[in-house]
């Protein structure tokens, strides 16, 4: 029998979620730069407020331009629903606060973006939500950390900045046995490199600011719900199953089934916390997503060039990328992401912290800034910047060393980046040569 003719990945990056405008025929997604939407009459207004019908009320809750982006990301991930947020951090916060309340507990990978780590380590405990951190390779550790009040496992498939790979299928088995969802930050892999739902994730969060948007222009985040997690098992997830006074006794799991999580996150979280994405940012991110496949292919091929260059460079003490056979997670990374294991490289520079700073200060073409996943190549010294708010113990737990340079491989001709790096390495070794005289 012929295969289904539903859209394939590249077509989805260009079309999903958008019906061309009927009034003016605009082919591009219009930017609906409006705060609010006219009601047809009082009956219509009441129906919208009571979730009796779909539509837009106020752009803090939803917006037509943002909704196209949400549906596009849901389609690319194969999820039932998605909700866009102002940033990746707000996506993470919203995902956790949709199911966690004071007294609840989270099990998280210790290899996380510094902001995520601090949210879990410092901020959520102020609201009564505790986290136990487990090294991403420690499967037994994940199992042992789960308590009766644990509401989810949180992690990154490609850890930041240590580039450890979480064995998601195995972690997912542990979570399923415990009856809790797995929430995975898919920023570094994007839906192009792997489908996290197929690997066992229940909820995906993204910083769309990075590879999805791809050009370093616009902040944005997104939560995507797979739709098959059984919130009704036991009484562990009251925000999903119990009648919600805020909507006349609505049970999100009962009424919205596969989209229960997203509906609760929007109806409560966007209403009360308000981390909404601007329609202009949604437009910019949509433009970025149109070329996701093309860009990711180039990111991956450029990464291979740079891994080879760094691996044979006498000024580099170590190179960390999952494509390297000596990476501890090489086999699992190849299995989970056969088309490329991301475009983040970490490496150690001969001469440690001072050499690293000299290298970064000498960069002319490669940008020194606090972002990843730009079309342009980026470098940073995590220990003194993105992860600087972590104490020594936390830095060790995250696998961070003083000599580490984090490199986000861009789309330039790598010959030019190599010239830039050659200059940087020359500069990095000068202080040491002077010191040895």
């Amino acid at each position, binding site marked *: 029998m012929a295969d289904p003719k539903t859209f394939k990945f590249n077509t989805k990056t260009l079309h999903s979620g958008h*019906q061309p405008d009927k009034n003016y025929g605009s082919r591009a997604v219009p930017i609906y730069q409006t705060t609010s939407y006219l009601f047809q009459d009082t009956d219509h207004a009441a129906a919208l407020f009571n979730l009796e019908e779909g539509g837009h009320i106020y752009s803090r809750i939803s917006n037509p331009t943002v909704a196209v982006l949400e*549906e596009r990301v849901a389609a690319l991930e194969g999820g039932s629903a*998605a909700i866009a947020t102002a940033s990746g951090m707000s996506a993470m916060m919203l995902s956790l606060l949709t199911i966690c309340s004071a007294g609840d507990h989270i099990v998280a990978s210790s290899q996380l973006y510094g902001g995520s780590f601090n949210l879990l380590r410092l901020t959520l405990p102020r609201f009564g939500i505790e986290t136990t951190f487990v090294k991403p390779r420690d499967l037994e550790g994940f199992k042992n950390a789960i308590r009766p009040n644990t509401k989810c496992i949180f992690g990154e498939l490609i850890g930041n900045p240590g580039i450890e790979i979480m064995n998601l299928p195995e972690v997912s088995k542990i979570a399923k046995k415990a009856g809790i969802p797995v929430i995975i930050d898919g920023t570094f892999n994007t839906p192009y490199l792997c489908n996290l739902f197929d690997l066992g994730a229940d909820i995906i969060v993204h910083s769309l600011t990075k590879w999805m948007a791809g050009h370093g222009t616009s902040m944005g985040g997104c939560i995507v719900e797979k739709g098959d997690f059984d919130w009704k098992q036991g009484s562990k997830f009251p925000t999903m199953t119990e009648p919600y006074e805020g909507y006349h*006794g609505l049970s999100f799991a009962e009424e919205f089934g*596969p989209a229960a999580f997203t509906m609760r996150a929007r109806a409560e979280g966007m209403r009360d916390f308000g981390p909404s994405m601007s329609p202009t940012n949604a437009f910019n991110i949509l433009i970025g997503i149109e070329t996701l496949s093309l860009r990711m292919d180039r990111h991956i091929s450029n990464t291979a060039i740079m891994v080879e260059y760094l691996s044979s460079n006498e000024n580099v003490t170590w190179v960390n990328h999952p494509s390297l056979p000596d990476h501890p997670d090489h086999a699992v990374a190849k299995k989970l992401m056969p088309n490329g294991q991301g475009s983040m490289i970490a490496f150690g520079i001969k001469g440690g912290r001072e050499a690293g700073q000299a290298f970064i200060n000498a960069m002319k073409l490669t940008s020194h800034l606090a972002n990843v996943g730009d079309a342009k190549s980026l470098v940073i010294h995590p220990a003194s910047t993105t992860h600087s708010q972590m104490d020594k113990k936390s830095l060790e737990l995250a696998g961070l060393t003083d000599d580490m340079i984090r490199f986000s491989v861009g789309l330039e001709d790598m010959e030019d980046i190599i010239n830039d790096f050659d200059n940087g390495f020359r500069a990095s070794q000068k202080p040491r040569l002077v010191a040895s005289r």
Partner: protein
Amino acid sequence: MKVKVNGKEAYFTTSGREIDQSQPTIVFVHGSGLTHVTWVLQTRYFAFHGFNTIAVDLPGHGDSEGPPLKTIEEMADWMASLLNALEINKTSYVGHSQGCLVGLEFAYRYADKLDLLVLINGSLSMKMNPELLQLALDKNHKAVDLMMDWVHGPLGQVGGHPVPGLSHIGMGNQLVSANNHGTLGIDFSACDQYENGERAALSITRPTLCIIGKHDRMTPKKVGIELAKKINNSQQVIIEDSGHMSILETASETKNLLKKFFKENS
């Protein structure tokens, strides 16, 4: 909510409202491999505007205990048993796809219990593609993928869900996949074998609304019109932008048609 029907737990939702015996009741019956969730953009309106709404999970679907029923006739009888269990003597009936066949048979067997009838994306019979039927009986996920292709019109395929952020195909995929443990195949088989549609349609005397999707590839427009023509006292409406999932693809338009129909005939 749950109630025992024929000794098995039957699940239905009332949108969180208590059943009020002084109010008119509407039952909503889903299509093959689906559940009550498909009705959320219709049921919540009526539940808050003077009706009892009972959106069921047929046996073996969603949260209703199995096994799934093997014939449309058994499903019609089950609906009558459910109403008895809830002490509801008369109801309006809204069905989608397979739920229309159940509605026809319910109207034929239990005419005294029926008030108004709405058949959405329905037909007099539903002969299944043999290969699709076999895939579903084999619990092969390709049956779900093919269904997601065929049930959605151009609007559902590209997207533009009435509820911001929801994906037509993603939602449908999850709903049907959850019932692809044999239930979908049994549903398809029940549809394929049903032969009493024309006789049942001819027997209906109550006001009936037939909603047809212009781009419906499962129950094409012409079979929807044929169904409407067999029912006395019926009206038909063709929705321009809809495929087979009018209740979701054109949810507001479908709800507004229901509102108008119930207002005119109540």
